[in-house]
Structures are given as structure tokens and as C-alpha cells.
């Protein structure tokens, strides 16, 4: 079985400052790391490798320094790594990102299963997985919280939906996005670090994509325009309520309900 896992390099902390003038995330001088959600996707793939003898390829899009997350994936037991890197890929929104990844995956080979994390910690859109599947014209399943098994060229799994759980079976090739906590991700291994120190990483530029039209990539291929990025306002306002427990609990319940902190479970 051939598995591709999409991974991304994100800022190392959640406290990234935003440039007030340009509205762009200040990434300079910030430590980076692998998107924590991708660790669950990787671990899912590595469990398949243990059980079903799979071969795992990771794919990432980013600047040359994004090789670091591929090296880290090697240290966790991944077999091959592709970096999609080209200045013309820059400024991509979710659509252009998904398209680029789809092109990169086509260039990298044929896969039975593509696994993505639920979302990234910097963009937080949770859309790339599904859009990527559409571009590849394969079925996809999101919110996978448990793998039941693989048989007859089909994968069966449990989906964690907002109000219920659902079991789905999908034929290969397909794409799944996995929830945080599906497995506890393993730690990178020093032995594998030594063993994969010279393992090559294939870098693909726009020219090596099946579609070489620059209008489909990066800023040019992005219909989304970011007007402004700003941190959500936080306030320290608070209210004090006094009263009997009964009255207070009813009031608290209605407050939470009115402010949409609660979902109606009916």
C-alpha cells in the first residue's frame, strides 16, 4: 500500500505577532515546527506501515527551510519526502494550496491513501484536505477518529461528527483527514535521524508539475483576498451575579445558550 501524508511547517508557538501595517504574520525569528495536527496523520500512516506493510511519502509545500519537517518525518519512520517549493507558489490561499498539493501528489506518484491532519495551527481553515481530494477526483472522509480496519481494498473507520459518530467504508484511492488523538504520535528517533541524515528530499518546482500554468498557483491562483488580519479582541469585562443557586444556574444556562456557547441537543 502506498500512502501520502500532507504536512506543513508552522510557527513554533501560538503567540505569533501580526504586523499592524501589512497585516501579515511575523514569521522572522520565530521557531518553527511541524503542524501538531499533522503528527496524528503521520502516526496513522505509520501504524498502517506496521500492520499492512505500507510505504509512506510525505509532501509539504513551503520555502526551502520547510525541509526540516520532512527530515523530522524521516525521523519518525517515513520513507520518502517531497518539497513543493517555488516562489510562484507563494501567497496561496486554501484553493491554490490544495491545487498545488494535488499537482505535487500527481507528480510524486500514485497513492492508495492520502492522509491529512484535521487543520493547521496557523491557517486553521480545515479545508485543504477536502479540496485536495476534489482536485484529485477521489472520495474523502473527514473527522476520522478511529480506524476499524482495511479489507478488500476498502478502509473502514469511525467519524467523530458534532452530534453523532458515523462509521464509513471507502474504497481506495481515497483521502482522509484525522482528528487529534486518533493515536498518540510517536517521538522522532535519534537512531532514525542518524540513519536518514543523507536521505534525499525531492524538491519540485512549478516547472515539474503536470500543470505548468503559473496563473493556477500562488497569489495568481488565489481567489481569496485577505483584507486584514487581526488578533481577536480580548476584554477583561466581567459581570457579577448574586442570587439563589436555582436562579443563578437558570440564568447561566440561558446566558450560555443565548451567546451560542451551547448547542441545542435535541
Amino acid at each position, binding site marked *: 500500500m502506498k500512502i501520502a501524508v500532507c504536512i506543513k511547517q508552522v510557527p*513554533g*508557538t501560538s503567540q505569533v505577532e501580526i504586523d499592524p501595517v501589512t497585516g501579515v504574520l511575523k514569521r522572522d525569528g520565530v*521557531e518553527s*515546527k*511541524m503542524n*501538531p495536527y499533522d*503528527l496524528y496523520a503521520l502516526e496513522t500512516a505509520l501504524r498502517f506501515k506496521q500492520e499492512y506493510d505500507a510505504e509512506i511519502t510525505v509532501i509539504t509545500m513551503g520555502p526551502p527551510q520547510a525541509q526540516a519537517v520532512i527530515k523530522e518525518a524521516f*525521523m519518525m519512520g517515513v520513507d520518502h519526502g517531497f518539497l513543493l517549493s517555488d516562489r510562484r507558489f507563494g501567497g496561496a490561499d486554501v484553493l491554490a494550496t490544495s491545487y498545488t498539493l494535488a499537482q505535487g501528489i500527481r507528480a510524486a506518484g500514485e497513492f492508495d491513501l492520502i492522509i491529512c491532519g484535521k487543520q493547521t495551527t496557523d491557517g486553521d481553515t480545515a479545508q485543504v484536505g477536502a479540496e485536495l481530494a476534489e482536485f484529485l477526483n477521489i472520495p474523502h472522509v473527514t473527522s476520522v477518529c478511529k480506524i476499524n480496519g482495511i479489507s478488500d481494498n476498502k478502509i473502514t473507520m469511525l467519524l467523530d461528527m458534532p452530534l453523532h459518530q458515523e462509521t464509513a467504508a471507502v474504497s481506495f484511492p481515497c483521502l482522509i483527514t484525522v482528528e487529534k488523538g486518533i*493515536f*498518540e*504520535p*510517536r*517521538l*522522532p*528517533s*535519534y*537512531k532514525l*535521524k542518524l540513519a536518514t541524515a543523507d536521505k534525499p528530499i525531492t524538491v519540485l518546482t512549478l516547472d515539474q508539475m503536470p500543470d505548468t500554468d503559473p496563473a493556477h498557483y500562488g497569489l495568481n491562483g488565489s481567489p481569496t483576498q485577505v483584507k486584514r488580519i487581526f488578533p481577536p479582541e480580548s476584554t477583561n469585562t466581567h459581570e457579577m451575579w448574586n442570587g439563589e443557586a436555582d436562579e443563578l444556574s437558570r440564568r447561566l444556562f440561558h446566558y450560555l445558550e443565548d451567546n451560542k456557547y451551547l448547542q441545542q441537543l435535541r
Partner: protein
Amino acid sequence: MKQEYKTFTAPDLEALQAICGTERVIPAEMIGEDYCHDELSGVHKRPDVLVRATSTEEVAAVMKYAAANHIPVTPRGSGTGLVGGSVALYGGIMIDLSLMNHFLELDEENMTLTLEPGVLLMDVSKYVEPAGLFYPPDPGEKTATIGGNINTNAGGMRAVKYGVTRDYIRGLEVVLPSGEIMQLGGKIVKNSSGYSLKDLMVGSEGTLGIVTKAVLRLLPLPKYKISLLVPFPDLPSAIKAVPTVIRASSIPTAVEFMEREVILAAEEFLARKFPDNTSDAYLLLTYDGASKEEVDLAWEEAAGICLQCGALDVFISNTQERNESIWAARGAFLEAIKASTTEMDECDVVVPRKHVAEFVLFSHALQEKHHIRIRSFGHAGDGNLHIYILRDDRTDEQWKKDLEAVFNDLYEKARELGGKVSGEHGIGYAKRPYLEESLSAEEKLLMSGIKKVFDPQNILNPGKLFS
């Protein structure tokens, strides 16, 4: 020796209420159950009165009254001790210092923090770290007060590199058993001016004076840290690697050992998986430093050494999520072991580092000898071991008997290896017989002599350290 004290009466209560007011002077019948015991020692006693002091002057006035009337006084912080040190064995007055919990001064130029004794350990790091400063002692019990830490000379995981509480106490304000207020040490770095009473006070378990203020020494906050989880085929090979790892060019911040069965217990307890549970034994190493380069150099050298010493691999934990997945489990070990049995007691011995492996293996062998479950994990790097003896379904009598037999074997072995009764929990009430056995006649004489000089009436925390 049977102690005779004045019986606490209504006029005494009134006198204390005249000093501190009625709200913070609580008579016996209204004292909460929590004030009658600590966390593990199994000793239980209700004080005659609880005084919740809010200032040094109040502590001094209460102490003066107690001295004039020959009433025993037991100081107390959060009550998280493990040897009965803060239990009022002879009743009398309990002074609760937990309301004296204010930060007084963060002196960035002198790199000191002056605070009251009731500040919780966990609040110290929150207070100093935003200023780029660091209080290294790191005992596991974060809800302990700093006063309690000072009185037990608490250690913690970072002792391998940074030392223990005593190494970070610059100055103390104490109320003596006579009620006199004294300033010991100060913001000074060096001091060759007579006997170091400040250092004597640290670790004296509230038997020489009541700490009412402390000046802590701070360091620059190390910006980078990394943990290594190192699997070994078995516990002996894991622990035998420790001295070599510590001898490398960089000292690890912490060296912990853990075994598979404790990890499995923690996984069950937390309903959460540990990043790896396939090996029988692990070392957990932590490195910190000012730059990424420095830390990388340190851990890569250590990783190489571990492999040479027979490690199966070296797993790298370099992000917050990864550290959390390890330390959440590490933090739950004690609770997980507790949950697996009916009752347990703990041996907190410390042996020279090179004997840690021998001692742990010895303690394991006692399981068969005494037909009892024994679990251990802890600070392989500083020789301080935490060995837990589990009661399971024993009767009271059988538990007492077996526990004593196991403790005797453990302390005898520790003595043989040049170890000491307590690494960081203290002696308190529970470990007195073992301290007694381990001290020479001359040491005992000196220690009781010191106690007599400070507290001739033996009214401050009586029944602790010595019988």
C-alpha cells in the same frame, strides 16, 4: 520522652484572639479535618487552636505567648508534606502561614525575589518568568508553599544541574521560639560572617524557627529546552548509563527513570497513551540552555552516549505538545500508583549516584522477600529515590509489620552504601526512628544541642526530627 505542656484553655484562646482577632483564631471544634494530617504519613491529631497569621508581628506575638505559657506550636503551610512534619502531635497552637502569601519585591538587579512563606511554589515561576528570571528548585508538589520547601530543603527534578532549595535561599526572616524576630543572610552573594544560621534554618522542619519572609536567589531563565525519552532493554542497563550521561560535557537538567509497569498504570489512570511503552525501562533526560545551538550540542552528545550504553533508541521531545505528552504521564505516576492500591508509604532515601542502580535493584528484590508490591520511579540523576510500598489487601497489623520490615531493609542498605534517610521529604514524625538509627552518637548530641539552644522549652514543632 513524654512531653508535658500546659493544657490549652479558654483564656488562652481569648489571649490569642486578642492578638489576631476572632476570625483568624479558630477553636479546636471548628478546625477543618485537613489541618489534622498531612499527605501521606498516617498520623492524625487535632490542634487545640488554629491561628491563621497574616504578619510577622502576629507570628512573633503568638510565639511569645506560647513561650510564656509553655504551649506547643506547630507551623504549617499547605500541609502537603509526606512525613507528618506539619501535624500538631501535642495539640496546642497551629500557626497556618498560608495567608502570608504575598510577593514583596522582585529585585532584577540583584536577581532576588523577596516573598512571604505562604506563596505557592507554582506561583513563583509564574511571577518571575515573564521578567526572564528563573527559580530552579522544582519539587513535584507545586501546591506546596515556599515556606514548606525551605523547611524540608526540598529538591525536585532539576537538582541534578541546579541543586536544591538551600542553594537558592539568600536570606530569611524568622521568628524564634522565644518570639524574637531575626534577619538571617540577605541579598548578598558571599558571606563568611560566622556560622550560617540561615543555612541551618533551611531544612530544620520548623523546629528552630518559623520562616516569615525569604529572599530567593534567581537565575536567568534558560530559553531552550529539550527532553529525551530513552528506552532501554531493562532497568539495570538504564540506570547504569546515568553516571556516564552526567559525566558528559553538559549536565542534564533532570534525569528520571521510569519503568513500563508504572507507565502503563499512568496510561490507564489518565486514559491517555504515552508516546512509547514498548520497552521495559526508560530514562527521561532534560537539557536546557540559553541558545538552541548549546542545547542541541548537549543532547546530541547525550544521545550518542545513551546508544553506546545500550539504549534501544533515543526519542526526541522538542515541542510543547511532545513535552506535554511525556510530562502529563510523568506527573501522574504517583496518583496512578496510589489508585492501584489501598494505601502506600514511601521511602525517600538518597544514595551516592553511582549506587542508584544497585539500590533500585535491591528494592525490587524485596518484593519477593516480603511478598509485597513495590514500585519506584524518580530522580536517577541525583541519587534520590522514591520507593513506594503498596498495602493492597493487608490487615492493619500485617501492613505495619511488613512495612517496617521493608523499611528496615531499605534503610540498612542505604546506610551500607553511604546514603541518608531522606533526600527531600524530611524526617518529620514518620522517619524519626530511621534518622535515629543512622546518626552517630556525636551527631545526635550536636543536633539535640542545637535544638536546645534555639528552643530550650521544646515548644516549637515538638516530636519532629527527634523522639
